[in-house]
């Protein structure tokens, strides 16, 4: 996997998230749920009030209607009662008037005027009563008024309709008979048949009048019974109304309950839905959404919760994407680091704005700084080490010189140890070019001697040894050859040439050996003489300055010398100590530096392990 592929896994979760987040924004249309809660509550209350009002209104209307019917009935009863009572009075008056007319007619000289007046009065009464009854039959019969019939039927007195008809029939029948009688009496009076008239009045007029009155009284009584019936009907109606009220109350309760249930259902169910969704989200089901129904406040809340959840899910996915990207970057970085750590501790970068390249840049920058720092530290440590070593050497030399100086005699060894002498000279600050030359000579002589000692003599001795070995080998072979030859010598004399040849080679070899030894001798002599010469030369060279330089020193007092020696030793000691300290510090720095390197290397390997693991685990997350 290379860094250039990085933008791809970043963009992938975006698409995945966009697909994963479902959009539950299907509006389920509901006419009731489109109304806001306040409106719905108001509607519910109004509906309840309406139901109750309608129930009360219907009952009240019924009650008022029945009351109106009853009062109408009562009123008509009163009117008819009055008119019938008046009619009864008419009947009585008729009787009286008839008797009066007869009396007026039966006197000796009847006044025609009085008779006419009486007859007129009687006729008037007849007409009046007739019209009263006609009016009654025309208007007051129960079966002409269906509402009254219904009222009586309610009171379980339906037969009163027939009773009234019967009584009216009886009244009419008796009246007819009486009227006929009265008319006949009037006729008899006017025609002068007074005896017949009197007889008629006595035996027909009065009984028929009584019958008529009796029939009329029955009718009047019947009116009274009607009033009772109306009261019964009112009671029945009251009961019915009570039942109706009960039923209406029940129905109203049911309706109001139903309305309340409906309205509360529209609220509670969706609130529960909201709660369920919020719980699901709580449990981690971020893709659950509220189904939005209607357009009221709860729907608004649901919508905003849905959008909030969308936002949260978007933020989460974005965070996850960032995390994945960072993880990827770190993984890439570490894998690359492992790869390139051998050659150059640096990660390649693409100049992009993505976090990986930024991280890489930062890493590179840091690593470079570290490397520079460690290098600088290393060099400074080395320098410190060198310095300390030099100081230590110088201190050592100084002590030696001091020691030789204090003995007061230039050591013969100083000849062989020119550098120490030279250092001593430098320590006393009395150097010159001659001494340098002496030093060079001595050195040369020393080297020569070493050369002679090691190389030339050694090689020669080695060749000598080799030659001797060869010789011994050759002699051994010869001896072996000689042994069978000695036995065969008696028999055959075929190989004398070969033995001769062998002997000749041995001879040659011996000659060579001697030559070589000679050469070695001469060489040794020559080099020794040269060394001798050189040493003599250097001795001659050294003799003169030594006497010149050492002379004033000898002049110095022994106390001063002692003091100087002591303080010098002390100084040297201090210097040595410091050099040791510096060396130790340098050692430590170096050790730390290497330790840091090692640690850095180790860390790079150990850290990459969990990173790898996380990469493995994070992959399904991004792909899911």
């Amino acid at each position, binding site marked *: 996997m290379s860094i250039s592929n990085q933008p791809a896994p970043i963009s992938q979760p975006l698409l995945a998230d966009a697909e994963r987040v479902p959009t539950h924004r299907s509006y389920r249309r509901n006419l009731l749920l489109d109304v806001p809660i306040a409106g719905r509550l108001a509607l519910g209350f109004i509906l309840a009030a309406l139901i109750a009002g309608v129930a009360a209104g219907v009952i009240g209307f019924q009650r008022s209607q029945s009351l109106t019917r009853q009062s109408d009935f009562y009123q008509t009863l009163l009117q008819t009662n009055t008119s019938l009572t008046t009619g009864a009075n008419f009947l009585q008056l008729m009787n009286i008037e008839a008797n009066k007319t007869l009396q007026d007619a039966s006197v000796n000289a009847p006044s025609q005027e009085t008779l006419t007046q009486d007859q007129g009065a009687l006729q008037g009464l007849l*007409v009046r009563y007739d*019209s009263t*009854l*006609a009016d009654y039959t025309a208007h007051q019969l129960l079966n002409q008024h269906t509402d009254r019939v219904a009222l009586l039927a309610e009171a379980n007195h339906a037969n009163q309709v027939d009773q009234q008809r019967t009584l009216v029939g009886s009244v009419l029948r008796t009246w007819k008979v009486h009227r006929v009688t009265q008319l006949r009496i*009037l006729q008899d009076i006017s025609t002068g048949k007074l005896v017949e008239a009197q007889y008629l009045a006595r035996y027909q007029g009065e009984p028929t009048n009584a019958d008529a009155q009796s029939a009329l009284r029955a009718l009047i009584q019947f009116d009274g019974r009607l009033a009772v019936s109306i009261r019964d009907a009112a009671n029945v109606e009251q009961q019915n109304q009570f039942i109706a009220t009960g039923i209406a109350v029940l129905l109203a309760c049911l309706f109001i309950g139903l309305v309340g249930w409906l309205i509360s259902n529209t609220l509670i169910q969706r609130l529960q839905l909201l709660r369920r969704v919020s719980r699901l989200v709580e449990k981690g089901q971020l893709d659950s959404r509220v189904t939005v129904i209607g357009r009221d406040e709860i729907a608004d809340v649901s919508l905003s919760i849905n959008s909030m959840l969308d936002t949260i899910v978007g933020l989460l996915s974005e965070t996850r994407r960032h995390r994945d990207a960072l993880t990827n970057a770190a993984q890439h970085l570490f894998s690359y680091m492992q790869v390139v750590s051998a050659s150059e501790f640096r990660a390649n970068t693409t100049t992009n704005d993505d976090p990986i390249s930024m991280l890489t840049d930062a890493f590179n920058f840091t690593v470079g700084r570290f490397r520079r720092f460690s290098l600088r530290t290393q060099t400074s440590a080395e320098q410190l080490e060198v310095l300390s070593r030099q100081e230590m050497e110088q201190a050592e030399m100084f002590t030696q010189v001091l020691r030789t100086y204090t003995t007061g005699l230039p050591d013969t060894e100083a000849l062989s140890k020119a550098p120490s002498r030279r250092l001593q000279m430098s320590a006393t600050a009395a150097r010159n070019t001659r001494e340098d030359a002496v030093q060079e000579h001595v050195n040369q002589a020393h080297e020569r001697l070493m050369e002679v000692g090691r190389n030339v003599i050694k090689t020669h001795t080695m060749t000598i040894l080799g030659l001797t070995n060869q010789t011994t080998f050759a002699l051994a072979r010869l001896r072996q050859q000689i042994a069978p030859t000695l036995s065969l010598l008696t028999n055959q004399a075929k190989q004398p040439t070969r033995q001769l040849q062998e002997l000749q080679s041995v001879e040659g070899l011996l000659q060579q050996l001697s030559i070589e030894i000679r050469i070695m001798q001469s060489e040794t002599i020559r080099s020794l003489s040269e060394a001798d010469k050189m040493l003599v030369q250097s001795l001659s060279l050294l003799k003169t300055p030594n006497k010149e330089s050492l002379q004033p020193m000898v002049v110095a007092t022994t106390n001063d010398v002692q003091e100087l020696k002591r303080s010098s030793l002390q100084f040297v000691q201090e210097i040595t100590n410091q050099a040791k300290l510096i060396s130790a510090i340098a050692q430590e720095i170096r050790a730390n530096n290497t330790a840091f390197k090692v640690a850095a290397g180790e860390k790079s390997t150990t850290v990459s392990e969990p990173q790898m693991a996380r990469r493995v685990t994070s992959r399904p997350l991004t792909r899911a």
Partner: protein
Amino acid sequence: MKTAGHMRNIQGIQQSTDIFFAKISVFVFSLCIIAVLCVSCTGPTDAQQAPTGRLVVVGSTALQPLATRAAALFQKQYPQAKVAVSGGGSLLGLKAVTGRQADIGDSDLYADPALYPDPNLTDHIVCVVPFTMITNLDVPVASLTRQQLIDIFSTRKIRNWQEVGGPDLPIVPVVRPTTSGTRATFRKYVLEGGDESGTLLRTDSSTEVRTTVAHTPGAIGYLALSVFDNSVRQVGIDGQKANAAAIETGKYAFWSYEHMYTLGDNSSTMSAFLDFMLAATVQNEAARLSYIPIANMKLPTLSAAGGSGIPLSESEATLREHF
């Protein structure tokens, strides 16, 4: 944990309030139902009390057959009630009821307010009893006019059947005693107030009239149609025979309402019996016993209705045509 507990707590409160409301609503509903049941139960119970006790019915012999039959039917329907029916005539019935000796007084006549001024005396017309003129079987006259009847019974101008198209036989009018309701009706509606004279019967009984007429040659009498049988001959008035159709339409005048007088029908048994008299079973029985059910009667018309300028002398003539 705390918030979860809190949530659960809230839920619990909500549930408890739900249960509370449910309980209250159930309580209210049950109250309503109980109230409605109570109201609906109280109404009809007191109206449907079975009639108990004893009723004494006294009076008209004309109504007696129907009253007896009705009493039997009534007792059959309401075994706890006792109804005792006896005859004795209409006036006896009225006297008995006004003297509180009987619960119901049967009568063919109206109670005269002058004679029975008790305002509680209540008239119950239960049916119509048609009367008919009867003659001995040897008189073949089919019909007589009202004037002929007046002349026979009241003025006695006609004394032989020959004068009215019959055989030569003296007319023997059988007259009922004055207590007879039938006699009063006969006087008012047939004789027009005229007095009657003739063979006076000692007891007021329709059957006696029948037997007397049946056994007296040339006899003429009147009786209730319910008592009529073939031992006597039925005679029409003004060409109309006593039948339901003629009476209902007002063409035949010799009939009477049958009254049952009470002194206020406070007793439920009494009102039940009176209602029972008007019920279909008794009315059908009445029709079977030659009475005319009261519901069949048509309202008579007042010819001079409204008393418009018609002279009374003229109207009288028209009125008379009706009877």
